[in-house]
């Protein structure tokens, strides 16, 4: 077959009228202990989503990682198994996670069990005991997990990139060494919990099939007894990117090369943010971008390249990432530099900009259309001091961006001259092709 150009071509139907972005109603209360509670109603399914964001910057890396793995391991009144079983009874579950900015407790359950989930959350926050037996088990599991992570190219490439761009900043190392983990004992976890698991600057987000005011009442009732003095910990701003030779990290025998490029970005509230988002989309931030159409759909070098702005408390950075076949590593970098150079040097075509704008606006709607999506968005926003109503402002900013704005922002943010590039791969095979394009500094993994 089968190229069948039809006798009478059919025309693409136009879009219907756009429905205005409607930000759901939310209620907010700051409790006497300093905890901020946000409640958002979305009644679609009879569930509730919970996200508790606690500032955790500069926490000891290994202790913080193990604390998040053992926070739910027991309290004065419940064993770990009982905690899990009590949560299950109301269809609930909780898990804790940590990154260089925050400790996060998150979960979901039947909305009829909201009160119970909050009680258990309070029990953990005020009475986690870090029992030695459990800590021992979880310590070994965490060591194993880190070993598995260290065998994954995506993890190794990210580790090398973070170290390269953050230097001496606390963000530079985000995964503890197994030996550091092995040295952590329960008293250190109890001390870290006592020092840092505090309500003062924490934000609890509840989204679900409930009346927001009632959810605030339930949260206040359960969590009013959570205490702890705020010890404000400021992270220094991230250092500016320092372009230099491409950093080549050796992974002998690798059948693909992991290409990572960091570029300067701005926080969500910065006037450049909306135009930068659109510039990034045109470059490589979605499937219909120049970069993806080039290195995947035209050349077949890669499967899932992506490029996105990553926001952290201390600053934002744009990261472009692709796993490319070892034998085309050089050509893939060449096309990447070409596309960055193009977006930095020439304004986008009007239809390219419109397509990116519609995508940015539409995916805001999609992201808000589930309880889980709303909860994660509200929590991420709250972590940068924003509320969901910022969505409306962001949409308005996106609507106003011009091609000149994109060109101007792209010249400052997406220029290949500003890029920090890290490649993880079989160095003996790819060093030559890469060195033909740019100076290379080689390092073992």
């Amino acid at each position, binding site marked *: 077959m089968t190229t069948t150009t039809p006798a009478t071509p059919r025309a693409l139907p136009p879009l219907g009228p756009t429905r205005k972005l409607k930000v759901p109603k939310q209620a907010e209360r700051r409790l006497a202990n300093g905890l901020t509670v946000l409640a958002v109603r979305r009644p679609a399914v009879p569930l509730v989503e919970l996200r508790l964001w606690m500032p955790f910057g500069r926490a000891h890396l290994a202790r913080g990682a193990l604390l998040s793995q053992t926070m739910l391991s027991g309290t004065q009144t419940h064993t770990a198994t009982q905690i899990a079983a009590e949560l299950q009874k109301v269809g*609930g579950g909780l898990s804790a996670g940590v990154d260089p900015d925050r400790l996060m407790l998150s979960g979901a359950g039947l909305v009829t069990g909201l009160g119970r989930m909050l009680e258990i959350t309070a029990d953990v926050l005020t009475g986690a005991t870090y029992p030695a037996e459990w800590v021992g088990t979880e310590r070994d599991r965490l060591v194993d997990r880190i070993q598995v992570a260290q065998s994954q*190219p995506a993890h190794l490439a990210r580790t090398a990139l973070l170290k390269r761009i953050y230097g001496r900043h606390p963000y530079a190392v985000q995964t503890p060494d197994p030996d550091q983990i092995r040295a952590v004992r329960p008293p250190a976890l109890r001390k870290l919990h006592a020092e840092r698991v505090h309500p003062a600057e924490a934000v609890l987000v509840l989204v679900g099939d409930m009346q927001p005011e009632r959810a605030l009442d339930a949260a206040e009732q359960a969590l009013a007894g959570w205490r702890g003095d705020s010890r404000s910990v400021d992270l220094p701003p991230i250092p500016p990117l320092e372009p230099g030779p491409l950093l080549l990290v050796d992974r002998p025998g690798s059948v693909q090369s992991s290409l990572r490029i960091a570029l300067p970005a701005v926080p969500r509230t910065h006037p450049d943010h909306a135009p930068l988002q659109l510039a990034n989309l045109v470059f490589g931030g979605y499937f219909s971008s120049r970069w993806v159409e080039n290195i995947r759909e035209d050349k077949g070098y890669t499967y899932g390249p992506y490029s996105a702005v990553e926001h952290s408390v201390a600053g934002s950075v744009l990261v472009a990432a692709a796993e490319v076949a070892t034998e085309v590593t050089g050509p893939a970098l060449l096309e990447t530099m070409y596309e960055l150079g193009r977006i930095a040097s020439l304004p986008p075509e009007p239809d390219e900009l419109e397509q990116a704008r519609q995508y940015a606006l539409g995916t805001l709607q*999609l992201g808000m259309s589930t309880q889980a999506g709303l909860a994660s968005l509200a929590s991420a926003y709250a972590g940068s001091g924003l509320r969901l109503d910022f969505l409306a402002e962001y949409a308005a900013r996106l609507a106003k961006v011009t091609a000149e704005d994109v060109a101007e922002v792209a010249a400052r943010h997406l220029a290949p001259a500003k890029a920090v590039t890290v490649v993880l791969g079989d160095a003996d095979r790819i060093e030559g092709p890469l060195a033909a394009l740019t100076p290379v500094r080689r390092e073992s993994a």
Partner: protein
Amino acid sequence: MLTRRARIPATKYPVERYTLDNGLRVVLTPDRSAPVIGVAVVYDVGIRSEPEGRTGFAHLFEHLMFQGSENLEKLAHFRHVQGAGGTFNGSTHLDYTDYFETLPSNALERALFLEADRMRGPRLTEENLRNQVDVVKEEIRVNVLNRPYGGFPWLTLPPVMFDTFPNAHDGYGSFVDLESATVADAADFFRRYYASGNAVLAVSGDIDVAEATALIERHFGDVPARPAPQRPDFTEPDLTAERRASYTDQLAPLPAVAGAWRVPDPVDDFAGYLPYVVLAEVLTDGDASRLVERLVQRDRTVTGLGGYLGFMGDPFDMRDPTALLLQAHLPPGGDVDKVLRTIDEEVDRLATDGLTEGELARTQARMATHLLRDTDAVLGRALRMAVLEQQRGEPGLLNELPRLVGEVTEEQVRAAAATLRPERRAAIEVIAGGAR
């Protein structure tokens, strides 16, 4: 005796279903709580249907369905979906292949146009085929060859458990087979399997049923009628003796093992099948589950554990033959035999002594949350209902699943556990070639 059960809530998503003159089945499930829609087209062909010598072809063909069609140039599909503010994808399963979009609701007609256009015929060219063979090879490198535990156990366990090509072969495909695929193969595959009578269209979310019905008729009504092909019989006899295999994963730092047991036909014997879905969760869901308590916490012989139905992890999208799987990652130097023996012991204990007070009810409550959470996403409803229509003619079952899961009894779970005998098990062990 009446057992007290957790009160399991339900959804009441309305369901309209009908069939166009060309045989295309349609499911509509309106919900106007957010201005978004999900559109899914599911074809009744998957990995099990690909011909010998063409491993990976169903998935490769899925890629080709995005490479342009009657009225659409290459790249047009992506641009039209994303330029409308939407997202798209497709995926290839053992028994079906799906294509889907999530969009703001003002793009309904556009999405229908795009799906109808490729249902009439994709542009199958040599250039697109070669390009997508390259892309698929990179996909396989990312997901299988260049990472530890790649393809474990979904690609590595079926050849141990099954004897026939459809059930046993590598669904991602060998590079040799992928490279030898031709445009003629693709045209033939399309003609045979991508028939209007072999497909289901589901639309969920912010739609008016009458309007959507008219638009669907406008765009799909003149898709040429082709009947569904006869679905081959993929059944295989159950195992009568234990099967074990192992392989060295050069990238894996730690050992791992997965075991699987055949389960009743998910479609023809749904009532017999459901207790196994519950059993998998009783055994492995969370810190209060049987196997986590025993293997991870007490014995410390396992560091990570999972249990689920179907090789790709979805219990409600599989036909027979399928399996209950348990997989475990072990600490350094871990003893796989010991782990399997302990699993046998715990399963036996469950079958013999039954469940503890409240154990079943809390597991069922948690399962209800998972099921409801999946249906909150507009696309989750469209995809699941499309598959339920295709395999069972019963898309509304989605609303019933939390209740049905909640009605499984302790006796049924015990009886299910009693069938997980070592002599019916197929197991695959990963030897840690990357251990340091």
